């Protein structure tokens, strides 16, 4: 067993800080890397050490394997935590770490390769007896093959990139006439995004629920699951809101799917924290979708209901420690919901909104957690993910959690950039969401309420008065003849005494 003393975090943003927090709690020194755009990012200021890694585009910085390894060696880091995204599912990087004698906090390069390729992953799961979505056995060789397969499994189908992720290289086909053109389009998109045009075909599940299971495995053969996360509220195939427990789940199905997730992990000798994603239909049939061989963005809701710090477990597993709990020690306590806050304009097709953050008020109090990284005056770089933070709440019941999320969203104020906060608030007031009655088409199906003008009577006249006073205030700063108005003298208008009606 190898006590880790210093960890390089090969990432930026909220997840870099998330990892560093646990490191500080464990008295582990932290090494940050930063691109040219990130010199003043919070992860640089939070870390014990920080080194420049390259130009702003990630290909020249956060994806620069050579440079990152060089920094790790220079700083004497024992281990590298890759976070999510960037190099977190890059087998070459994991292999380089092994070669250099640096602990890669994640699974083996072999597992990353195997689970990173959707066709290989599907094969492995079928062999382990995990249900998969009906479809091609592997990459399709021709459009003709596609047509034949589709005759077998029936329409609608989904064409997917073998190397894919994040919704890229995906095409839904409802009519036979569209098969050929859709296969071509998916191929070219896949080629552009991943440098690999292999695609495969899957039956398309109507009213699908995206439900995933968190698993954790040590180096001694112990594997447990930490229950499900319901991730069906998505926009453009990107998750927006996650919750646990899933409103769809039954105790029997949880048990069955949890065991399937553990079997899936064991089938590939998985080590570390990972996630098995499933599609579940309205009849509670479930199908293996893919495995993420890293920490997920939405891991905090699992932490909250189980009480397990997943980053701490990742580090302990990487050190060779056995898990200090078994499946029967784990319980879901209460209900947790996560909302992702993006710098984007929900009223304008979720267009990213870069810019300078003017002011932030974080929501606080009982049952509220935020994992973020931006601060007042911070200029959100245009090069990376538009996610500003994650707002996680917990309640004894789902109703309490929803009420608490509404309260937290009320408190959360980020000005200067457009954010998804208002949109998230509308979801928390949506009747279907409140009933737990939703699938991955939630946003399209509830467009009217989610995108519509709010009916709240807003204090428009008070805004007018505020702007007017600010105007008079600035005016009197340039003109001493302005006798009508006495401007504010300090942060808060300082007058000898405060008047009251």
């Amino acid at each position, binding site marked *: 067993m190898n006590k880790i003393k210093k960890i390089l975090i090969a990432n930026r943003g909220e997840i870099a800080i998330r990892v560093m927090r646990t490191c500080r709690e464990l008295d582990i020194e932290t090494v940050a890397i930063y691109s040219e755009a990130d010199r003043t990012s919070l992860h640089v200021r939070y870390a014990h050490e920080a080194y420049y890694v390259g130009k702003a585009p990630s290909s020249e910085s956060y994806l620069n394997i050579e440079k990152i390894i060089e920094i790790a060696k220079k700083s004497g880091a024992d281990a590298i935590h890759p976070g999510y995204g960037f190099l977190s599912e890059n087998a070459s990087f994991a292999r380089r770490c092994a070669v250099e004698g640096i602990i890669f906090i994640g699974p083996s390069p072999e597992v990353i390769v195997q689970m990173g390729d959707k066709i290989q992953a599907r094969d492995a799961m079928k062999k382990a007896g995990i249900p998969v979505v009906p479809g091609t056995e592997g990459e399709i060789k021709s459009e003709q093959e596609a047509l034949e397969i589709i005759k077998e499994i029936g329409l609608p189908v989904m064409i997917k990139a073998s190397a894919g992720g994040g919704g890229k290289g995906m095409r839904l086909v409802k009519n036979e006439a569209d098969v050929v053109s859709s296969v071509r389009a998916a191929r070219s998109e896949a080629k552009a995004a991943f440098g690999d045009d292999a695609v495969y075909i899957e039956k398309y599940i109507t009213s699908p629920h995206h439900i995933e299971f968190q698993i954790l495995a040590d180096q001694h053969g112990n594997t447990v699951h930490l229950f499900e996360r319901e991730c069906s509220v998505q926009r453009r195939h990107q998750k927006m809101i996650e919750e646990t427990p899933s409103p769809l789940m039954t105790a029997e199905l949880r048990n069955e799917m949890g065991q399937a997730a553990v079997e899936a992990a064991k089938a590939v000798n998985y080590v570390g924290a990972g996630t098995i994603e499933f599609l579940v239909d309205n009849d509670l049939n479930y199908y293996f979708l893919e495995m993420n061989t890293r920490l997920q963005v939405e891991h905090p809701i699992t932490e909250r209901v189980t009480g397990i710090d997943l980053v701490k477990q990742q580090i302990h597993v990487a050190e060779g420690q056995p898990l200090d709990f078994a499946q029967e020690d784990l319980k879901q306590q209460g209900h947790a919901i996560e909302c992702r806050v993006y710098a984007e304009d929900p009223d304008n097709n979720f267009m990213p909104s870069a810019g300078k953050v003017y002011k932030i008020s974080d929501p606080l109090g009982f049952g509220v957690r935020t994992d973020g990284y931006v601060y007042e005056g911070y200029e959100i770089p245009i090069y990376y993910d538009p996610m500003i933070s994650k707002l996680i709440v917990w309640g004894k019941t789902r109703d309490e959690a929803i009420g608490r999320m509404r309260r937290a969203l009320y408190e959360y104020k980020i*000005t*200067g950039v457009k954010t998804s906060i208002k949109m998230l608030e509308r979801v928390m007031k949506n009747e279907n969401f409140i009933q737990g009655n939703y699938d991955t088409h939630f946003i399209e199906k509830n467009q009217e309420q989610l995108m519509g003008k709010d009916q709240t009577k807003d204090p*428009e006249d008070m805004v007018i*008065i505020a*702007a007017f*006073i*600010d105007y008079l205030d600035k*005016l009197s700063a340039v003109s001493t003849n302005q006798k009508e108005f006495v401007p504010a003298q300090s942060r808060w208008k300082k007058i000898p*005494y*405060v008047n009251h009606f």
Partner: protein
Amino acid sequence: MAVQIKIGDRLAWVNLLKQDGNLLEVEVDGKKYEVDLMHTADGTFSILEGGHSYDIELVPDETPKKYTAYTLYETHNVEVIDAEARYLQNRNANGAAAAESKITSPMPGKVVKVLVSEGDPVQQGETVVIISAMKMESEYKAPKDGVVKKVFVKADDTVDSNQVLIELE
């Protein structure tokens, strides 16, 4: 002093009727409000009106007199349209306005530069004086061809609204 304020699609007249420290009597489109208004220099407003508590954040735009306002859950685009703004608007609409021989300041400000001297010939549309108000510099142009009869201001002077700056012959 009354100005117009544009909020979304609405254009409202607003006027300060009375001030007693933080207690203001303000009229918005003819409706009178008694408000207890406290604010910070960087745009945090706490307004109490009829007992209700409003917390408003104003974020200044790059363009002066424009704001983004954040309330409970809403975001508003707000613009103050004062005499200067209307003057500039009209001027832009009509080209150089009527055959006025006097150039006046539409609002209080500070003279940045006077570009002409008495006796100078000027052409219509030529900038004769630059005034700064609220971080913004505005160029005031000759409304017609002519000769400068009198210059009433010099650089760094503070000017009131409707004060005559330059008279042409």
